[in-house]
């Protein structure tokens, strides 16, 4: 069992809070992504899980073991946590061969020679590195280096693997391949993985659940679909997908169905049952259809070709900026009508 439990974890650096009151649970075997803009605290949270930083408040458990507790001052050092960590800079030891880099964790654990050889071979095979075993890290490409780093953390069978923006230094094509490598790795090992990234496409593609972070807090922790379709607040709505948040002018409740007035148009909206009062809706391109008879009259302000389709940035008569997608080409300045269909509504104080 390697659930990760955090209860009211906080961290301040020289008086400035970097993390505030994080209480959450990552389940055993889950692939969790920590997503957020730079400076949101996601890397700090990861480094606290690893033990490189100690929390200023709260406590952390992995499985049944307490890792850190700010009250008692207990903080298990990283070397005793049995976690794997993959660095953005790979952090391969340049003076050791690929094989030695991978087998080093087993040396530390005093495995026998034959055991070391067996596990190392398995880890190298799992990452497709057999033929590179005797190279030095400086002779490898970026993607190969990251695979060595992955093999190194897989070899010692850690109870959780923490990854700190592991693909940030790779080019776009390689990033897609490596996403596949990570997903396969996760399927095969069933290890709990916590993956820090600022790239939402990356998080959506790989994670079971995504924790969207901002200003040191988890804003929403849900599956990719839920995050996209049912954002909890303005930050999540705008950060995930191409959402535009607009205020709701009036709401009418009829049973389960809700009718709202948005930008002057009457629209049926969806919202969480628990939500008594909604104040804003999130408009994504798929909530907007372009038609001659659309209620919202707007003008095209910018056209971006997206390959097979166009992204239109339009300005409505009342001044709101909305994004719509279309297969037909429009010119800048063209007038068109937009219809809003069942957007997600939430309440924002």
């Amino acid at each position, binding site marked *: 069992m390697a659930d990760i439990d955090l209860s009211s974890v906080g961290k301040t650096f020289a008086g400035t809070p970097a993390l505030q009151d994080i209480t959450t649970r990552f389940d055993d075997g889950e692939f969790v992504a920590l997503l957020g803009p730079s400076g949101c605290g996601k890397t700090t949270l990861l*480094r*606290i899980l*690893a*033990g*490189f*930083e*100690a929390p*200023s408040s709260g406590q952390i458990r992995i499985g049944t073991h307490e890792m850190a507790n*700010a009250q008692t*001052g207990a*903080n298990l*050092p*990283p*070397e*005793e*946590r*049995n*976690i*794997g*960590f993959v*660095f*953005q*800079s790979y*952090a*391969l*030891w*340049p*003076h050791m061969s690929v094989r030695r880099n991978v087998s*080093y*964790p087993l040396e*530390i*654990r005093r495995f026998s020679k034959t055991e070391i050889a067996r596990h190392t071979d398995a880890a190298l095979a799992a990452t497709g590195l057999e033929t590179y075993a005797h190279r030095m890290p400086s002779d490898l490409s970026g993607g190969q280096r990251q695979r060595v*780093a992955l093999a*190194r*953390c897989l070899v*010692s069978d850690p109870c959780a693997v*923490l990854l700190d923006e592991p693909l940030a230094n790779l080019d776009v094509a390689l990033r897609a391949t490596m996403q596949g490598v990570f997903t396969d790795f996760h399927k095969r090992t069933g290890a709990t993985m916590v993956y820090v990234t600022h790239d939402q496409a990356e998080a959506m593609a790989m994670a079971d659940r995504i924790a969207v972070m901002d200003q040191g807090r988890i804003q929403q922790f849900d599956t990719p679909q839920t995050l996209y379709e049912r954002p909890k607040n303005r930050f999540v709505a705008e950060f995930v997908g191409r959402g535009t948040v607009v205020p709701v002018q009036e709401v009418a409740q009829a049973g389960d169905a809700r009718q709202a007035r948005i930008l002057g148009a009457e629209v049926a909206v969806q919202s969480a049952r628990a939500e008594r009062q909604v104040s804003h809706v999130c408009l994504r391109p798929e909530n907007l259809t372009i038609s001659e008879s659309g209620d919202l009259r707007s003008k095209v302000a910018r056209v971006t070709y997206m390959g097979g389709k166009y992204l239109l940035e339009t300005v409505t008569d009342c001044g709101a900026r909305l994004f719509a997608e279309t297969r037909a080409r429009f010119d800048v300045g063209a007038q068109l009508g937009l219809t809003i269909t069942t957007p997600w509504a939430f309440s924002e104080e």
Partner: protein
Amino acid sequence: MMNVAQQNGGSRSEARLLSAILIVAICLTLAPVLRLFVEGVTDQGSPSLTLMRDVLAQPSTLSALKHSLVTAGVGTLVSLVLGAAFAFLVALTDLRAKAALVFCLMIPMMIPPQITALSWTQIMGPSSVLLKTLGIAPPLGAPQPLYSPEGIIFLLGIQHMSIIFLTLRAGLRSIPQDVVEAARISGAKGLRTWWQVVMPLTFPSLAAGTAITFVTALGNFGIPAMLGIPAGYATLPTLVYQKLAGMGTTVLAEVSVLAMLIGVVAVAGILLQRLCQSRQKLHLVGSTSRPLALPLGAARLPVEILLWAVVFAILVLPMFGLLATSLVPAYGVTLRFDTVTFASWYEVLFRQPVTSRAFANSFGLAAGASVALVMICLPLAWLMERRKTRLARLFDSLLDLPYALPGVVLSIAMILLLIKLPFTEATLYGTIWIIFLAYLARFFAVMFRPVQASLKQFNPAMDEAAQSVGASLYRRLRDVIFPLSAPAAAAGAILVFLTAFNELTVSALLWSSGTETLGVVIFNLDDSGETGMASALAMTIVIVVVVLMALIQLFSRRFPKGVVPWQT
């Protein structure tokens, strides 16, 4: 402690190890300095300034102070003129073979001052073997021109020109070419660019270099001892030496005051240097992509010839004098094919028990100090980089003190600290251990700074990666940090070895029969008139120095930036 561990996370063993090593390092480097200060302001255990007043009122103190200030001050001016001229020409123009020139200019700094003095006396004066051989020696009875304040000033100037050269060259190289180009575009011409743009930008590094040169010249013992003692011209370091050598430890309190006096003047110089260096950092804005390179045009060849001629005169010529003296059967005989003999070499290298003992002592002390300092400095520099506690930062700003302070000051401080070990009747004074501990203190910064420079460029993720796979602090130091900083540690170790192997100032005050070092033996051989043997020994040491320097140079590409002192 708790607070520190909380702030930085990581393992508590790091915090514990850091405190442990830091305490050892502070005891080694700062405790002696503190002990000296206490001695100066107390009298038999109670605070008193009477002793200080008495010593400072003695005429010998005042004249030595005056001599020290004059020789160090004017000597610094000589260094300034020579070093600055070389630095401007090497750093700013398109001279050829710059690397060779820089290497040659570094040699004077690495050759111990007593050998510099010895070699120069061999090419001047009536008994110079070289001059006799060439038939241009002054008549017998003519005075040795170097046995004079002017001689001391001249040799101090040559000995320390490398310091000015290095600091100024580093400063000049950090001036980007576009600064001068911008001045030209704005309409500034020729010398105007020079005075209004280049000079103001180099002033801080020039001032810093001058201050540290003055401090080094002030603490120099070898040159005023070899040249000044025969002339009856005492500086503060030689006065301390003469008093201690003449009257033993009974005058310890008195010489402590003298040592403090040197220390105070030196600290003033060090503070000035720090101030200038911090001001220089302000100038280091913008890219330094392309340093200045002014074409010399037709003047290039004449300038090159001139520079190499100067190098020949200050480096090669004295060595010829030394060589000539070492190859004649008796001092004063002319060197001819039929008089050449290796008797002095054979005698000094293989026959004399005192020299072989000195070789063993110096080798053991230098090698021991190198190894011990690697063991202390490597983990300490690493831990100080990882956890910047207040104590660690304070130590970082003070650890240069034992190296920057004149050797005489450190030696007296060491005697005071170790003459009677606390809680026992034992003493380390007169044993080899006091020299060893003094070397550790003195050369601590020589080892620490290159290692620190290389660790600053070290990616902390390397260590964290090892931590995350379960490696303990000891394993990480052994398997990751040590191998990766080994080149810097090696460079530091060679530098420590080089300086300690040749050292005279500290051991001159701390040696006793059986614990002579090579520096002491050369000094004593020359003092007792065995100039031939002294020269042979000095030549041997010069060869060792040049070989070791060449070794560092050879591997310099593998060292991180800032590790080899003459490649900053």
